[in-house]
Each structure stands twice: as C-alpha cells, then as structure tokens.
C-alpha cells in the first residue's frame, strides 16, 4: 500500500521511538525514500530532540546542586538529633 504524507506524519513520533511494527516501518521508509518533505520533517524533529536532550539547552541554575546538598545536610543533621 502506498502511504500518503499525512499518514507518515501521524506516525513520525512512534517511528522515531522505534515503536512501530515492522510492516509500518517498511511502509514509512519506502515513503521517505522518495519524499523530501517527510524526510525533512523527520530530520528536523530528530534534531529538535537531540537539542532537547543536550544538557546545554536546559541548564540548571548555577549552584543548584550545592544548595540542594546543603539543605539535605541540614535535614540529616536535624533527623540525627531526634
């Protein structure tokens, strides 16, 4: 069966996560081979996910870890006195 673009778009997310079945994967891949638009959408989405997972994109506040452990240390100290 020939897939249309819209059908591919509906499954892009699952395709990226590798959670489509073998048949659907094959259909999508066949479509991607000749469809520049869907290939570009797939690549752009993938790149956004790479960028999202990159620690530089979503940074923690400076000193966050130190303050967290200092607070925890105070808690442990209080608990000890109980």
């Amino acid at each position, binding site marked *: 069966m020939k897939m249309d673009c819209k059908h591919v778009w509906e499954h892009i*997310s699952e395709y990226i996560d590798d959670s489509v079945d073998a048949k659907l994967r094959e259909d999508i891949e066949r479509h991607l081979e000749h469809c520049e638009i869907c290939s*570009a959408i797939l690549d752009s*989405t993938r*790149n956004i996910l790479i960028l999202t997972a990159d620690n530089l*994109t979503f940074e923690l506040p400076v000193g966050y870890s130190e303050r967290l452990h200092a*607070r925890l240390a105070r808690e*442990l100290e209080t608990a000890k006195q109980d």
Partner: protein
Amino acid sequence: MKQESGTTEAALIERILAGEKELFHELIRPYERRVYLTVFSMVKNETEAEDAAQETVISAYRHLASFRGDAKFSTWLTTIAINEGRKRLRKAKRAAEESIEEQAEGHEGDFTPAPLTDWREIPLEALERKELRQALRSAVAELPDIYRQVFTLRDLEELNVEETAEALGINPGAVKVRLHRARMMLQKRLVPFLKSTARASRAFFGRAL
C-alpha cells in the same frame, strides 16, 4: 541518565534505612537534574523550581521507608516531584487543574508538522547557536501543560513510556499521543529558526538519537 544497576541502588537504600543516612546524598545525586527539570516544567520559574526540587528531595528522604522495590526509585522520586509541582500550581492558581483538563479537549486537530524542503541538513553550528536553544526553551515553556509534562519526562529526562505513564498517573496510550503532539508543535514552532541556515555536512546526522 541511565542507572548502571538497580541492585547497587537497592543496597544503598537498604543501608540508608538501616541508619547510614549520609548515603542519601549519593542516592539522590544521579537524579538532581531530573528532579529540577520536572518541577521546572510545571512551575516555570527558576527560584520556585529550585525550592520545589529541594522539598522533593527532603520529602523523598523522609518517606524513604515507604518506598517499595516494585517501582524504580527514579520513578518514585519523579512522582514526588510531580506532586510537589502540582501542590504549588494549585496554591498559585486554584483553577489551574481544571484548565489543564480542558486543554486536552481544546487542542483537537492541528498537530501536523510544518512541511519544509530547504533545511534538511542543518549545520552543526546552527544547532549550537544560542538563539536556537533559547527558541527551543521558549517553545517548550509555551506548550500546553499536559504536553509539556510528557515531553519533559520523555525527551528531556529520557524516561520510557511506561515510567512516564506511571509518574503522571495516565495510561501509556495517552503518553504517546501527547508526546507526538508536543513534538509536532515544537517542530512547527522551530522551523522558522532553522529555515534560513545554509546546508552543510551530513556528518552530524550519523549521531544516534
């Protein structure tokens, strides 16, 4: 953000409960980032998120005895973080919960990606541009709450579908649908930021996701 082995963690928890309390610092360390990002995705304010992250960790410490080994520690901790975030949202805005529910219905229809043909090969330099990171942060912040939460847990913190479903108390099917919508909304939002970049080497795309 993968944990090497659950057994080490289980042993650590056992020792903490047996009295070696200081080890809680070590137990929590691999998840500091996740806890912060989880609450930040909800309260969207750095100061409040940091405060909520601290409360989460303290609460996890105080309730460690009630942690059961049938869930992963990381999922359990994430659930505490989500509850802390929800508590703060409720406090900040009584109606927040209702509007979160409404959003589920309110966004029917438009989850198609933006078609494009001229930036298939995004140069690495473009991805490293500060403006792009900023644009992504803003786009994520502007996602409707239910989508942002799922996106944060799945794509930022790299929990799997089941863990995300468990942490949010929704079914795995809903996780997949929301994740798909979140990704498509982001793709659409970010196209203009990428479009004008010139073509460059393909090498970057060899990177596995």
